[in-house]
């Protein structure tokens, strides 16, 4: 990640600390797949796949079926290989997804806010 602030000077001590904190959080993200597994918790409410919904209510709503595959995400469910049964591998995919997603989010937000704030001067 770039180490410059909006004014072009070196990152402050606080910003550096936040960056390390965020990297630490990325490494810990597999907690987000392990805890639900350990406590036998399923999908978030309202976020079931068409197949799971069919198991729950006995049919797939027609509109839901039409829209549910409208988009093929490049890294679906934060995993490069959803059929890989290894929890360790899935944890690795999850961390990599977290780093990719967080970096993209960081850079795009930085770009957008630089464009917005610069124009305001």
């Amino acid at each position, binding site marked *: 990640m770039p180490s410059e602030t909006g004014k072009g000077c070196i990152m402050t001590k606080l910003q550096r600390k936040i960056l390390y904190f965020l990297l630490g959080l990325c490494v810990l993200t597999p907690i987000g797949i392990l805890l639900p597994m350990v406590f036998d918790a399923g999908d978030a409410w309202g976020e079931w796949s068409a197949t799971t919904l069919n198991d729950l209510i006995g049919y797939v709503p027609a509109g839901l079926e039409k829209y549910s595959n409208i988009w093929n995400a490049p890294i679906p469910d934060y995993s490069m290989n959803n059929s890989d049964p290894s929890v360790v591998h899935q944890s690795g995919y999850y961390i990599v997804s977290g780093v990719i997603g967080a970096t993209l989010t960081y850079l795009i937000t930085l770009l957008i806010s630089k464009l917005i*704030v610069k124009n305001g001067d």
Partner: protein
Amino acid sequence: MHIPDGYLSPQTYLPLMGVFVAVTAVAIKKVKLDVSARYIPYLGMAAAFSFIIMMFNLPIPGGTSGHAVGSAVIALLFGPWAAVVAVSVALIIQALVFGDGGITAIGANCFNMAIFMPFAAYYLFKLFSVNPMKKTRVFIAAFISGYFSLVLTAILTAVEFGIQPLIASDAEGKALYCPYDLSVAIPVMAIEHLVLFGIVEGLITALIVRYFLKSDPGLIFALRNRKGMHHD
């Protein structure tokens, strides 16, 4: 709380997409006026934080899972309009790259988590921080802000889910989109966020605000405004 594709009817997701676009246009103007250049790197980090914190799925044992959003702390630290921009970016990346939240539901999800939630959090904090100079008071107000803003956002999301059977059913009475009505969606979403996810959002909000209060109190938007310090 990321509504997938197919759960909302076009009658629901199209208006919410419109509201999202309109509010984002206002947010860009507000950020231009209110946000100083020294906030820029923090905004990028705030957006990244929101992205990462949403990956920490927490279980209701034997039930569903859910997570904190991070919108509350971003709204308190950098202002609700900046939070609109930061959290929207995180949500759009989640939808486009990771399929978390639907493409058609981007407007709805951003409306809930990136617009409603930061404003709810900001005004809840204002309401409860009577004396912002006392650290415990700030901590408690920040917790309340995070806790209730997430619970209210969950209820808003539940309303969007729950009105679908009223809007669109086929001739046999089968739902076309989300099949659960308000009487199911609201209690489930409210309770799971009241008992677990809201507490996590509240703690994250309070702990991070406390950290900033120690390290760089002048940065905290929600406290700066109260003292009328608009010097930068």
